[in-house]
């Protein structure tokens, strides 16, 4: 193990079947109201007919190392927590929505009670030594979570062994949600 922990999620797009179990597990675990979601599935089809390829991605907050939402938050409600996760303290959130506008991934939304919501990497579970709900439920084991700074961790080894990408690298936010391609 080296350095401070850096929580990272790795999504294996070769294994994901887009079943949405992660989306529903997240909603159940975190009591997300109807009509809202912290995680979602994207299906991207590219190519030239009939030579088409499809990629399925389970997406959520990227818990960026240089999070623009944290920089934009006027009250400190959006902040870094364990393992570099980006968390919103509800009691400090005014609902100004600067964080939502600053997010290149559109990963945040306004909860019906007024505060801003997003994926927490299920930090409450991680602190108990459990995996995030989406990782736990995934039937194809396409989601992996851990400390990328720990060379022995599954996420570090997957990223070392397989080709991967992040979304919107050009935004310069150093995201911690990787996709194995």
């Amino acid at each position, binding site marked *: 193990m080296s350095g401070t922990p850096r929580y990272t999620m790795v999504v294996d797009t070769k294994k994901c079947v887009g079943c*949405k179990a992660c*989306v529903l597990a997240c909603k159940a675990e975190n009591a997300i109201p109807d*009509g*809202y*979601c912290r995680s*979602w*599935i*994207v*299906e*991207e*089809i*590219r*190519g*030239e*007919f009939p030579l*088409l390829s499809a990629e399925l991605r389970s*997406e959520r907050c990227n818990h960026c190392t240089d999070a*623009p939402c944290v*920089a*934009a*938050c*006027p*009250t*400190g*409600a959006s902040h870094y927590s364990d393992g570099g996760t980006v968390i919103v303290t509800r*009691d*400090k*959130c*005014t*609902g*100004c*929505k*600067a964080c*939502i*506008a*600053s*997010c*290149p*991934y*559109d990963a*945040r*939304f*306004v909860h019906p*009670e*007024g*505060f*801003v919501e997003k994926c927490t990497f299920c930090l409450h579970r991680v602190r108990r030594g459990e995996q995030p709900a989406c990782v736990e439920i995934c039937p194809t084991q396409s989601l992996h979570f851990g400390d990328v700074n720990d060379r022995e961790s599954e996420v570090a080894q997957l990223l070392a062994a397989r080709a991967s990408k992040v979304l*919107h690298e*050009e*935004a*310069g936010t150093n995201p911690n949600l990787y996709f194995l391609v």
Partner: protein
Amino acid sequence: MRQETLEIVTTRANPLIDPALHVWGWEIPLYLFLGGVVAGLMVVLAGLSLKSTDRPKSKAVQLAPFLSLVLLSVGMGALFLDLSNKLNVYRFYLAFNPTSPMSWGSWILVLVYPVVLVTGLSSLSDELRANLMARGFMQKPSVAKLMRQAFSFADGARRPALWATLGLGIGLGAYTGLLLGTLTARLAWNAAILGPLFLTSGVSTGAALLLLFKLDEAEEKTIVRWDLVAIVVELALLGLMLIDFGVGGAAGELAGASILGGSWTPWFWSVVVIGGLLVPLGLNLIEVNKHVRATLFSPALILLGGLTLRFVLVAIGQESSFSMIQ
């Protein structure tokens, strides 16, 4: 050449986020406009007053600081309406985040009130002060004493208050633009030029608001000249913004699409550029060169153009996100 297919289907449909971001409605552009007008009033009033040691000549300029506080309060009311967690509004004043223009703005707004109040009190003529002191509620000895002390303090602090008004006015005007300009996830906002653009537009609209009232002839001439300069600079900054879009590759093309052929094109070109800047520029040039007195037409157009600029920029920023780049 055959076209590559790209189709993206998402299960996400969060309110205010999808299919395109629309978290900010009328409240934010109205606030950005009023904040800009107030910033402009502060810059113009301080500029006029710092030129001489006398108090302003016209009643309009003497009372304008108080008008600016009313307008700022209306703008802050709009900001408050936009908050989705209104009970936590006090949280703005329990923190300072140097990387958040909104945090800077919150504190600037708090400083603006006392500083502009001192500028306003020190700007009032003896006649207006006597009128104020003759009011019913001023007859109470304690209130009258307090007001006399306030006038005495304001007169003593006039020069520093004017400099502070100028500095805070520049800060307020620039922050309203930087607030959007630092939200780099939105392609059309991704530019520091929005700071000087909104400041210049603020100066122009603040000057225009003053020109709606009866002014002293010398004051009017000065303000029309300053407005002329502000309009020219604003046109240049808008030109630079469009050049930025033009040289910004795919991201720039997407950023400018809404005003270069897209749905906001008529509003931007007809109301902001032609109606709000070019026509007033022509009218102001005639007023300056032919020595005719200003009409209400030109300032009204400038104000309408300034308001529309905020609405257009807030809208096109929200419409242009990183997810458009594939």
